[in-house]
């Protein structure tokens, strides 16, 4: 029987040693991804969502970075222990990434065709004609019209939305089993975002590809993910099936975040519920719960001890000492 979990990350800790001290960017993150599943990772800037994925892909510059502990098992192999050349075989071929800024992710002096063909040449060793043929197919697949002509274009001739489509085409080139999309629609307008979301959902279905969608936008996650991880200051604070996360959030941070959002589909007459303060300084080694300063329910224990992820329902976990439903301490 095929192994259900395609990726399993255990106790990942990533730090950066900089002039000002040590940045505790990822503090013991564990999660898994099943074959063909789409998960969302949400959190504000600096919460460690990108660093987590970069660590798994081994794209963290070392030094100043350091992966202090952890495992990232891809099909049972620990990515963190592979040699650089073994990792190169996996990157782009088995696990592909799409980045936030389609304006800077391309090399401006090479044509789109040349850049799109690179993974095909490097990983699959295809001939020139085959590469050309496959590149045209890929651009067609992501909805770019007149592919033969556009293969000769340079990135600056593409609009933002087209560049992000081309990035996705490049990521799909070797039919990866996991696509990691790091804020792929943040730089785009909502109408273009809707196009990209639809595109990724369609391709995911066609190719039975697993997707990790990183974003700060709780709205987009609701559309794309089956399961969601909420991150805060380098920790996963809540994990749930998408309907449960929005319908029944169990971590005070998730609750506060959802209450702070205005909605396009209904009018809220009251003031928005803002979360006081700002996220903690990552230069200080975490001791208790990272949300304690801003949490309306915090008590003594929260300051001294980081709560583990408690099982609060079926496939629903939250890292809080308080059961927010009963108001009782765990």
């Amino acid at each position, binding site marked *: 029987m095929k192994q259900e979990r395609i990726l399993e990350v255990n106790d990942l800790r990533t730090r950066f040693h900089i002039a000002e001290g040590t940045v505790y960017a990822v503090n013991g993150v564990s999660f898994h991804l099943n074959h063909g599943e789409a998960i969302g990772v949400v959190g504000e800037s600096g919460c460690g969502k990108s660093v987590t994925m970069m660590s798994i892909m081994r794209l963290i510059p070392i030094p100043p970075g350091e992966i202090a502990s952890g495992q990232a098992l891809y099909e049972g192999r620990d990515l963190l222990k592979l040699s650089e050349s073994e990792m190169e075989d996996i990157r782009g071929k088995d696990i592909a990434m799409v980045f936030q800024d389609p304006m800077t992710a391309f090399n401006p002096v090479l044509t789109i065709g040349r850049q799109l063909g690179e993974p095909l040449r490097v990983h699959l060793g295809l001939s020139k004609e085959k590469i050309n043929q496959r590149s045209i197919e890929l651009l067609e697949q992501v909805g770019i019209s007149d592919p033969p002509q556009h293969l000769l274009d340079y990135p600056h001739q593409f609009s933002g939305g087209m560049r992000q489509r081309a990035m996705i085409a490049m990521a799909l080139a070797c039919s990866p089993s996991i696509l990691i999309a790091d804020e792929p629609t943040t730089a785009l307008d*909502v*109408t273009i975002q809707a196009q990209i979301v639809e595109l990724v959902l369609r391709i995911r279905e066609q190719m039975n590809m697993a997707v990790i969608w990183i974003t700060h936008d709780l*709205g987009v*996650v609701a559309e794309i993910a089956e399961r969601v991880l909420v991150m805060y200051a380098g920790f996963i604070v809540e994990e749930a099936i998408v309907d449960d996360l*929005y319908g029944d959030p169990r971590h005070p941070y998730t609750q506060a975040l959802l209450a702070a*959002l*205005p*909605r*396009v589909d209904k009018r809220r007459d009251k003031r928005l519920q803002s979360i006081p303060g700002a*996220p903690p300084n990552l230069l200080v080694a975490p001791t208790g719960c990272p949300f304690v300063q801003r949490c309306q329910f915090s008590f003594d224990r929260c300051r001294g001890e980081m709560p583990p992820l408690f099982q609060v329902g079926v496939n629903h976990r939250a890292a809080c000492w308080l059961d927010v439903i009963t108001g009782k301490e765990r």
Partner: protein
Amino acid sequence: MDDVQSAIVKTTPPLVLVDQLKKHFPIRQGLIIDREIGSVKAVDGISFSIQRGETLGLVGESGCGKTTAGRTILGLYPITSGRVLVTGISLENASKEQMKLFRRKAQIIFQDPYASLNPRWTVSAIIGEPLRVHNLLPDGKARDERVHELMMKVGLSPRLINRFPHEFSGGQRQRIGVARALASDPAFIVCDEPISALDVSIQAQVVNLLEELQDEFTLTYLFIAHDLSMVRHICDRVAVMYLGIFVELADCDDLYENPLHPYTQALLSAVPIPDPKRDRQRQRIILKGEIPSPINPPSGCRFHPRCPIAAEICGSEVPEWREITPEHWIACHLATNS
């Protein structure tokens, strides 16, 4: 606004009046013989008014001209044609004296709190600058006191008065920007995407601050944003802009619940809702293609190449800007009120 307030509002002249405003940026070519070979029609004839104490939202995709509109209304770009009247001062024939008063009364909050504050200036210098420029408080001590007061108003501790911008977080910097805008006691503030660069948990803080200040000082806002959810929360009326023109303008709830222009409908349906159950139920309109170039906008209705319901007339005739139901304006040949 409640009924009593809106009754008062209807009888007083608007604080901001914009009539057929155009802003074209020339494209020049040639080194020896400098010729104008065309122009970017960033704003191409928009008209609206804003009542005192009201918030008008201006939404649209990037490149639709909303930021240019905001800046032109403040006189930051020279007007190509049209008329702008703010607190009774007309931009095109204002005297130097009047212009100075105009700049005091009309302020702006910028999008990027990292780029809009001078990194070499202290908070005290930044917030105090309008007071100095307009010579409002010549006495240094009085000026410091006023800066203290402004910092308290926007929720910053006056202890931080001698700090530099880099010592603040994004949300705090935006508060500094708000305090600077408030310093000269303005009546009208253009908020140009004031929360787009901030994290969700901080956005709510800044929006609440803007609302509190509006209530306290009866401020009038032009709120430019692409976040349609936030616009619904903060605005009284909303204008939807596409390629330099308005396609729809209506009362906020009316626009969101009953959008009549196909572009507005598509735009609203593209906004993700943070509620998966509700999200799955709704009908999405996914627009094809992207916003065309404002150098040569499409003929007829500018939206017709992307419009899902476009008819023959849409490609040839410019739709009239008409009041389809009371206070609900639209530029579309085909939209009906049903």
